[in-house]
């Protein structure tokens, strides 16, 4: 049974169609990468899976059950969310922010208990940022904030995590830190991750870590291709997807592991595409 099944789903804002008849499914322990140019509708698709928007047509199932009418609380016990940009308004302490991940498991007027606070501390420990626990989260760097958001998703105890460009705006080190954390969590807890990203190389990275990885190339409201990154990511499709000339090369790193890489070379004028 797939954890997430989307079949022939469509969505539009008023008369503006965002995507049309999209299908995919996500299995346990799988990373599903959503790749496509800016404004292609990745975030809207994720919003629909989160129940923040609703698919206008098609089938949408979570854990094999029709999820179209799921309340936010029910969705939140299945899917956690790591946002692309988190706007920080009030300087909450890091542990307070992480504890918010427990909300879906509380009844309406309930506040988190000692157990919930302990879980938050454990999640911070697991992600390796326990030392930030008592810091106001407004003082953190972008990379640290992203780790806090992942810790918050972790205490939500869901089988699925949705990440919207989790490494956008991060430096080389933090990009790798985040990728490593995701890899470990998926292996250790058999989590499923749906991830929008601008870096096709991320899919190759996960694949090289022996994680079951699928990739969907999202363009003009449709999937150009869905499947195994190694086989569907070629120069031709990148040309269609982004309008760029790119080389796909194989690299052997210092540990003797071979991993594919995409090197962008130049843009192509509209005419030639």
């Amino acid at each position, binding site marked *: 049974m797939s954890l997430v099944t989307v079949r022939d789903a469509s969505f539009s804002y008023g008369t503006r169609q965002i995507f049309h008849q999209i299908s995919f499914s996500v299995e346990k322990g799988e990373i599903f990468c959503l790749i496509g140019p800016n404004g292609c509708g990745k975030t809207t698709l994720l*919003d629909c899976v*989160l*129940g*923040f928007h609703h698919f206008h047509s098609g089938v949408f199932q979570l854990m094999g059950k029709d999820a179209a009418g799921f*309340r*936010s*609380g029910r*969705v*939140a*016990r299945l*899917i*956690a*969310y790591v*946002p692309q940009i*988190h*706007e920080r*308004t*009030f*300087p*909450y*302490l890091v542990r*307070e922010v992480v504890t*918010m*991940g427990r*909300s*879906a*498991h*509380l009844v309406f*007027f*309930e*506040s*988190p208990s000692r157990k919930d606070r302990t879980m938050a501390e454990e999640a911070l420990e697991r992600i390796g940022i326990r030392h930030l626990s008592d810091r*106001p989260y*407004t*003082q953190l760097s972008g990379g640290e904030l992203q780790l806090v958001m992942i810790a*918050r998703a972790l205490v*939500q105890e869901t089988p699925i995590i*949705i990440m919207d460009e989790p490494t956008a705006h991060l430096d080389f080190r933090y990009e790798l830190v985040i990728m490593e954390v995701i890899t470990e969590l998926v292996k250790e807890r058999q989590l499923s991750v749906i991830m929008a990203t601008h870096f096709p190389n991320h899919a190759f990275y996960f694949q090289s870590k022996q994680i079951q990885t699928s990739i969907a190339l999202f363009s003009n409201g449709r999937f150009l291709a869905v499947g195994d990154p190694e086989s569907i990511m070629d120069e031709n499709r990148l040309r269609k997807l982004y309008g760029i000339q790119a080389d796909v090369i194989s690299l052997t790193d210092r540990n003797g592991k071979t991993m594919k890489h995409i090197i962008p070379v130049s843009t192509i004028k509209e005419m030639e595409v």
Partner: protein
Amino acid sequence: MKRALFYASVCLAPIICIFLSLCMGRYPLHLSDVMNALGNVPIWTDRTSFGIHHTIIWEIRLPRAILGAMVGACLAASGAAFQGLFRNPLVSSGILGVSSGAGFGAALAILLFNSVAAAYPFALVFGMLAVVCSYLIGRLYRTTSAIMLVLGGVIVSSVFAALLSFVKYVADPYEQLPAIVFWLMGSLASARYADIMIAGIPMSIGVIGLLAIRWQINVLSMGDREAHALGIHTNLSKGIVIFCATIATAGAVCVSGVVGWIGLVIPHIGRMLIGNDNRKLIPVSLSLGACFLTLVDILSRMITGAEIPLGILTALVGGPFFVYLLKKTKGGDW
């Protein structure tokens, strides 16, 4: 243990302020006289048999102190809740138009029915109506951005201010106009137990609601999308917070008139002292608001022979105190 101490001090502080308020005034009383008078509850005994101390305490100072504490608590807690909900530290209960709405409602009631008694329900209804309008204006573009909400509040406030002027203009200048103006300037001077009973109902409902939902205010302050993904029913929870904060404020404005400043700045003083977690911030705001208004009311009675309106003193006393705290805590993490 730490938690017990925290809640004990939160409850104790306003009680101490109320006792201070009972002792101080044009006619100072010793604490023993106060305790003596308080010991004889007038319900069970014939009230004529007691002296002047008893009358001062039971008929004048006690209702006034209690009402002051309630009004201050409601304004501060509502301000804190609104700030969290709208993700904007500059929002207060007044900024969303509840005060001007309530002012117009009260004036309209006096104009139509010639009675101040009708002012309570009208103030309540129009105060809530004003906030609903602000919220709808803020949502026009499908995003409840902070700027749009504040803008919505400003627009709604100015519309109700204009309507209020119109009511004043057409009101009978000998009977109704003074009643309207007197009501609007408001003070705690006319406090009676009846006021506490009537306005106490919306104020208590609002405060209890805010206390119950204070954890969700934290989550709502993460923004709509994230609050939803964290499992909060955002529309329902937002509705409850707005409803509770609005009826608490409207209840307060009913009896005290428009007392500004508290709803904006007391929550910030709370943030400096104990941080931003609404689980603590809402109780602390209640407590600080109650203390602050009770103390300011003592000043308003004592400085001059004629009472100084509360709104003037809250800003005059509170402003410098705020700056002092800012310097002392260096803003904390606030």
